[in-house]
């Protein structure tokens, strides 16, 4: 195989990989429906009294929705781990820095 045909072959392979990358369109629609249902549940907390569960429910839904979009729509679950490291390192640093900053201002004590 010549260098040119090998490169062409790789190109075709990578397109095939792309096509199999992630999920089918039906899978994406299912994920979107789950996200829509979770958003509806979030909005329902505005109308229905969840009592002590109000805050935990909202925070858990927010975190789960975040990771569903990042994992499935952004393909991090299926992609190379280096991409996950690039993103989660920034996210982890941001969360740590600002949780410490908020704690310094006694935000969590209120």
């Amino acid at each position: 195989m010549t260098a040119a045909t090998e490169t062409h072959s790789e190109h075709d392979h990578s397109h095939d990989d792309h096509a199999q990358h992630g999920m089918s369109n039906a899978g994406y629609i299912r994920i979107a429906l789950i996200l829509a249902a979770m958003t509806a549940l979030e909005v329902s907390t505005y109308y229905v009294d969840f009592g002590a569960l109000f805050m935990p429910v909202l925070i858990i839904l927010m975190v789960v929705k975040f990771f569903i979009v990042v994992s499935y729509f952004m393909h991090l679950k299926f992609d190379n781990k280096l991409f996950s490291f690039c993103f989660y390192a920034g996210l982890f640093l941001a969360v740590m820095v600002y949780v410490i900053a908020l704690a310094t201002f006694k935000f969590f004590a209120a």
Partner: protein
Amino acid sequence: MSDVAVHEADHGTHGHTTTTGLSNNKVAMWLFLGSECLLFGGLISTYMLYRGRVSEGPRPGNVFDIPFTSVSSFILLMSSLTMVLAVSAAQNRDDRGTTLWLTVTALLGATFVGGQVYEFTAMYNEGLGFTTSLFGSSFYALTGFHGVHVTVGIIMLMSLVGIIKRSTIPGDKAEVVELIGLYWHFVDVIWIIIFTLVYLIPA
């Protein structure tokens, strides 16, 4: 096939050898999105600290229209679905499907931005200006920065539609659509956080 070539086939560098075996453009986009977490983290934290600091003007509970913002949030969330369908179409080399879904995504994004302009106008008319209170300043800074990100995303989406239609895109079309898709989804996940922390959890 060499190890590097195998990596290329696996991760879509499309014949261009890189030291990691991954697309440099994609690594750069993920690093950019990682750094954006710090930008929005700062804005969200500032809002959380200042949302109760209202010396004059309306308080958060008096100006937020939750039903309206819920619809806006749902529209932005669904734009993530249309974006991922555009990426899927691009990977299947379906130019017609790609431009269709990119256009729908841009329209949904424009609807969201239009809703934000309406919301800002309504809030201003209720007496909440940018310098009215620390709450107003931090709220407009946070949601305004997000709105600018969505607007930049819309410009990129429409530019991409034009480029695809003229078939002048260099290199791999699917990867370019995927990169812009990553930016768009990121804007969506940031709104997921803002919607909960700013709108649904009262000060």
